[in-house]
Each structure stands twice: as structure tokens, then as C-alpha cells.
């Protein structure tokens, strides 16, 4: 899941300072789950902004709020018709994908990000999340016992551990588990320790041409073929 966190109130306030009528737009999927931009956060942020402007009296704002199920698909964005015409800017609480999809869909409307899209991660109980995937595009979790060294090893090395591992912790931080020790223990459990001796050639650190694109199905007449 995409994990994001709300920007500091100060940053958001300076971002919207130039706009009078602002639509706070929540997203009902990932950012709702990670408590950053669902319907409750939209409401919370709106009240916080209103309070800020009431107390500090800098300019006048008029806020409206709405939450879509997803901001990353144009079909959902079409549901906003009637709400976007009367605002000067949209403050999107969706991840960076949602913000961009919005900007693309409404070319004449400033779309501002209210959250920092942080990582792809997993929940650790209530209210905490850990990064798990770097979306590198070259998955080798089958060799590493389902533990990603690219994300969870500070150095991101494919043939670990390095000499900086100590008592299962990383030299970069005593709080952090060494991903390669975890991989070793996991492979031992699975009876696959032989995979530890397998050599992975260095990752391709050449600049991957971006943005990347995946085509799984094509629509008739799109002029594109399956990738």
C-alpha cells in the first residue's frame, strides 16, 4: 500500500495562501487506510485551517470538502464536476499519483499536495507503517526469503550481509534490523540456505528511462499493442 503523511500545517497554509476558494479533496483508498487523507483527515485539516485563519486573520479563505473513492483514475475525477468550477485551487490529500491525475484532468486548476507520499509499506498494528518495497522493477524476493534487501538494507546490496552488521543490527542505526541477517534466518527456516551462496550480479545503476509504462491490455483503436 502507498503510505503518505500529512504535511505540516504551516507548509499547507503558505501553499494555499494565494487562493481564496479551496476544495479539500480526500481519497478513499490508500491514504484513508494510512490516516493521511481520508474523509476524517479532510475534515480535520479543514477545521485546522479554518482555525488558523480565524486566529491569525491572514486573508480570507472559503473551504469546501469532498472525498473520492480514488483520485488516480479519470473516471472518478469526472464525478467532481460542479465542485471544481467554483474553486480557485484544489488541495488534494491523495498521494502524488492522485495529485498528478487531478492536475492532468483539470489543466486550468492549480492542484496542491497536502500530503507527502512517503513509501510503499505495511502497517505495524494501529497507526504505524514500515517501508517494504522500492518499486525497483526487478523483484528477487524468491531468493531472499521474501525479505527485500533493496528496501530494507540501508545500502540496498544484493549480496549481503556487509561487514557493518552487528548482533543482527545495522551499523547505520542500532535500532534497525540488518535485512541480511533476517534473510539468513528466514532461509535457514525454509531450509534454503544454499540461496545465500548464490551470487547476484550488481544491480543496474544506470539511469532507467522514466517514466516507466506498463501495458497489459489495449483498447480497440488505441494504436498500442500489448507489451
Amino acid at each position, binding site marked *: 500500500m502507498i503510505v503518505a503523511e500529512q504535511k*505540516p*500545517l*504551516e507548509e499547507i497554509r503558505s501553499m494555499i495562501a494565494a487562493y481564496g476558494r479551496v476544495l479539500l479533496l*480526500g481519497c*478513499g*483508498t490508500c491514504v*484513508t*487506510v*494510512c*490516516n493521511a487523507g*481520508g*474523509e*476524517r*483527515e*479532510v*475534515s*480535520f485539516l*479543514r*477545521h*485546522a485551517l*479554518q*482555525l*488558523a485563519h*480565524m*486566529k*491569525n486573520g491572514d486573508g480570507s479563505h472559503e473551504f469546501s*470538502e*469532498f*472525498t*473520492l*473513492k480514488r483520485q488516480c483514475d479519470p473516471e*472518478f475525477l469526472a*464525478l467532481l464536476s460542479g465542485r471544481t468550477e467554483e474553486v480557485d485551487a484544489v488541495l488534494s490529500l491523495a498521494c502524488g499519483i492522485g495529485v498528478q491525475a487531478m492536475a492532468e484532468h483539470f489543466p486550468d486548476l492549480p492542484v496542491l499536495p497536502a500530503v507527502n507520499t512517503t513509501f510503499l509499506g505495511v*502497517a505495524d*498494528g*494501529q497507526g504505524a507503517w514500515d517501508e517494504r518495497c522500492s518499486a525497483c522493477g526487478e523483484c528477487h524476493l524468491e531468493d531472499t526469503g521474501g525479505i527485500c534487501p533493496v528496501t530494507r538494507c540501508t545500502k540496498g546490496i544484493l549480496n549481503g550481509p556487509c561487514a557493518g552488521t552487528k548482533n543482527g543490527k545495522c551499523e547505520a542505526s542500532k535500532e534497525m534490523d540488518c535485512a541480511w541477517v533476517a534473510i539468513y534466518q528466514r532461509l535457514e527456516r525454509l531450509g534454503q540456505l544454499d540461496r545465500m551462496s548464490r551470487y547476484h550480479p550488481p544491480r543496474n545503476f544506470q539511469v532507467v528511462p522514466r517514466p516507466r509504462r506498463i501495458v497489459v491490455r489495449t483498447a480497440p483503436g488505441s494504436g498500442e499493442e500489448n507489451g
Partner: protein
Amino acid sequence: MSNSVSHPGMVRQCGSLDHSLIPPCQTACPLHMDIREYVDLVAQGKTMEALQIIRGGNPFPSICAYVCTHPCEESCRRGQVDNPVSIRALKRFAVEFGGDRMVQAEAETTQPEKVAIVGSGPAGLACAYYLRRRGYPVTVFEAHSAIGGMLRVGIPQYRLPREVLDVEVKRLIQMGVEIRTETRVVLLDLLFELGYKAIFLTIGAHQSLRLGITGDESPGVIDGATFLREVNLGLKPSLGRKVAVVGGGNVAIDAARTAARLGARTVRILYRRSRTEMPADPGEIEQALAEGVRIKYLVAPTKIRREDRHLVVTSVRIKLGEPDASGRSRPVPVDGSEYEERYDVLITAIGQAPQAPGDFNVRIGKGSTIQVDPVTLTTNRNGVFAGGDAVTGPATVTEALAAGRLAAYRIDDYLRHRYPTGTATRQILPGDLKVETVEAIKKLERRIPEVLTPQERKKAFEPVELVYDWETAVAEARRCLRCGVGAEILSQERCATCLTCLRVCPYHVPYLDGKGDIQIPADQCQACGICVAECPARVIVLRSLADRRSIDEELEHVLGGMAGSKVKPPILGFCCQYGLYGTGALARLWRETGAGTWIVPVLCVAKVESEHILRAFEKGAEGVFIAGCGEQCSRENTAFYVNQRATRVRKVLQAISLEPERLQTFFPNEQDLAAEMDRFTEAVGGYYLASVMAKEVKQ
């Protein structure tokens, strides 16, 4: 996609239907009283409001407060956790402290048809009450000299003080019910000739069953109903020193305890089964034993002989056999176990039956009961209805009241030429609490009202049970689990399945079903409201409409008042209404904090959302506090979540250069509340002054 707040009023669009379910107590109550509601009001110390709810579902709550056999308590799910809520005692508290005696009853005659009620027992009086409320002229005919039926002549005074009954009767007369005592109705046709358009027969079951053994008509053998009637009508039958009571029901217990009060030296109950099978109320049995009544189980008299002014009673020992049709073990006499005992008086209390005069010409069924259609309560005769013990055989007061009310409605239908209509629209809450839910629920000791000491009791016919004091009543009422008004997911469509509810629930109630959807089973939810205030999609709501809206509405109401006030600086407090906190300690505190403090009453601070707090500041509050009931709280983790939300709001305050100390949470037991509050108001005053001066400098 979700449609959220339409305006800053924060009153959410979340469906207008009340989805609360009928709790087991209400289902068990013959009158289907809204027990959950009035117990909750008692927990808030709102006795008058509680009484209002009680009176809405019960014509004579003061009577039920004394004598109801409280089937509600048997079905109370608190009993699955520790012990049931003492519902009847709480009703008694609400009746006494809510001012039931002051309630005036009035009724206007709007219908032309006169109705005759034959018998003035609970069923008859209830029927009269509801018919009057529907505008019919009503006459009650009573054969005895006093009104009340079994309430008057059956139930001993120590269980139902007669002034309680007299108040209710007076109220009926105030409502315009015509009462004719010492008028035995012998012919129904006569009533029709007198112009009555409908008749309700509620003649009770006053005929005691006979033992059917040799000598059961000897002098010195008296039946329980007659004995109690004589005592209750002011006679003092001479009992001698040794009294035996045969039977195991409430009448047997009543007779035994009455005999003890009349001065009998020894009173012994002879019962043919064991304690577990005894149909009498366990509490009453306990009280009888405490008063010195002795109970001999597994014996049955077989022969009575009169011998020099005593009774020689031959009894046989009993062993219990296979269960019979009633589900209880069948008593089997043990051969050769006969023994003799001497008594002065023997009271039989082995059951009673109705005795309808043959001239009534109504069809009689099993056990001499009057046969009626169970839905319409009509007998075989046109315009003649029947109910109460006369139809069911001996039953409880509350059942009789329910029968009387039903009869009134059906007589109304009959006279208005309507078909009876059903009224139930809400669903009944099914199921028991699961083990893991029970484990998570805080155990709270059941408070039982105090009783007079056995010595004091035996001296007189004063009511044995005392009424709760305020503190105890509130504490007891807070034990209610509020079954059936918990949280529900308003729309699976809008649910992000983020699992927040599953993770924050202190009772492990929400779960993922096989399809991967979150379910919050209504029969397990404890209605604490934590998930409602935490749900990131704001898709969880409380089932009851009132609960759902209360904080939003109260907050807007208070903010409106605050905006119009000139007293500065305004401070707003979200205050728990439960327990003494909302009614006693805190009420005093509010007064002490003086003008400028505005209170939003909340039913558990766990339901206060971060947005509510922000909104209070936004609308001009210079300080906000949240006061929960701390360790008194009957729910789990409420203070934790309130503090967590407060921390987040404080960060916002800080970000806009407001002192985070302007938001404070109070949970007594940790703090000296009064001193803390003083410090808080003083600090807010300081912040306010500073900000005003800063503004002036700016200008």
C-alpha cells in the same frame, strides 16, 4: 465515493433511520418497556426523564417497582459478564426520585361507547387506564370493598405498601374512571342493557386448589389466598404457635412471611420438590429464610387429622423422578417414609384457579380459565373480552398489566371497527456475548438495595426493601451494557477496510468476514464509540439516531450560546454525563468556574472527535477541556483515545502559535479536579489577556 460534510455545522448526512435493536431485557418484559433507555437516564442522574420513559411503557410503574418479578434481569446480558443489572430496583429509584407521586393524569372523553371492566386487579386497572387515555368512558366493577384485586388482597403490604396502590387508584379516578366497589357482576347481559358496548372480564384466579387429601377441610386448614385476603383486608386470623404452609410458589412464601409477622412462633414451608425447582422468587426465598421461616424440601402431606385443638399432619418423603410435562422432576413418594407432625394451622398454597360465574356464559377451558383468542382477547361472546389471571391462570402483576393494555387496544379496535395492527418494526437483538467479549468487559459489582434487618421486618408490615441512594443507583445503572445500540458500518461501499476499528476496539468485536469485508456484530458491540470517532472514512455510526447526533447537535447549540455571550474568555468543556461526574461533582464545578464556561454534555468522552475540539476553538473558545469519568468509566481505553486526540489537536494549536495548554483533559482519581480546573481557567484567562494586548499593540 463519499459525500461528506455539507457545511461547517458538522451534522453529518448519515442516514436518518434508527437501527438500534431491541435488547433482551425489553424482549423479556411483558410490557416491553424501554429499559435500556431509562437505565441509561438513571446513569446520568436524570431521574425525571427516566420516569417519563418508564411511564410511557407502564401504567403503574410504582407498583411494578415493588412487585415486578423482573424477567428482564434474568435475560440481562450483564449476567453473562458478572451479575445482571438490578433493573427493578433502578425503576423503584426512578419512581421515588423522579417524583412519580406528583404526576398528574388527565384524560378527556372523546368516544361515546362506554366500557365495563369486571374486576379491579392489575389487568382491569391497566385496561381502564389505557381506555381512558383513548377517550372512552370506563366503569370498573369490583366485588370486594377495596380496589386492586390481588394487588390489594393477595400481595402482602411489606411487598407493596398500600399507599402506593392508593396513589395509582386516585390517579385513575382523577382520569375519570368510574369505580364501583362491592358490586359483584353476576350477569353480563345486564351490563349490555346498561349501555356498555364492550366488557373486559378480568376476574383473576382467586379460587385456591385443594390438597385433595383426607382431612383437608378440617378446622385449622386454610387456603393461602383466603388467608392473605383476610390479613390484607384488616382481619387478624389467629394462627397459634406452629404454622405449616404447603407449596413452593410466591403465594406460599407470602403466606409464610405474613404468618411470621402475625406472631407465629414457627413457620415451616412444606415443599415436595427441592430448592432448584421452587418457583418462588429466589430473593423472596432468601428474605423468608432470613426472617426465620424454615423450608422443608421433598415432603408432601398425605393426611390431616384434628386432635385436641391441633392438627396432626402425616407427610411422606419424596424422591425426584423423571422430568414431567412442566420440565421439572416428578415427585415420587418414598414407601414407608410417613411421619407425623403437629401444627396449629396449615395453610395450603399449591395453586389457584379462576372461577367465572356460569351465568357469564363464556367458554371455559383448561384449569377453569376463560378461553380467548390470543390476538384479539375476545371470548365466545360478542363484545366480551377477557384477560389476566382469569385467562392465563395465576401469573405475574406485569403480565396482567400487559394483558390489560392489550385488551384496551383490542377493545378500541373493536369499537372503532378496525383490524388489530402490528407495531413491531425494530429487530430483536439476538445472541449471547462471546467469551472474548466477556473477558474484555470491565467487571462491575452488582449493587443490591439495602433491606431492613430480619428483626425489624418481623415486627411490622413495612416494606422490606429500601430504595437506593443516589450514588448507588447511578453506579448500578452504569453497569448496563446498552445492548443493541452499538456501532454499525453505514456503507460497506465507503469502508476502506483500513482495519482501524478492528485494531482500536477494546472488545475485539469487528472482524473480517470471508469476503474480506469488516463486520461489526451488533450483539457483541459495547457501544463505547471509540471506532466511530477513529474511523478514517467516517463510515461507522452509532445505531441509535439520538446517539449518532447528540455531540454534533449539542456542540452547535452551545457554540450558538457562546457566540452571543459577552463574558470573556469563553471556555468550552466536553463533559461526561455518566455517573456522579455529570450530576454531582462536576455540576458543582461548573458553577464554581463561573460564567464563561460552556458545557457540552457527552455520553462518554470517547465519542468526542478531534474535529469537535477544533471546531470549539474555531468558534471562539479560548480554552477547551474534556472531562471524562476516569476510573469510574465502565468502558475500556476511553481516556487513552481522548488523550491521543488531544495531543494531535495541541500540535495544531502549536502550529498556529496558540498555547497547547489551552486544551486540557481531566480524568479524576488522578487529579484534584477542582484545583486543576482553577489552574486551567486562570491560565486560559492569562493567554486571552496576552492575545488581546498583542492585538492592540499590532493595531
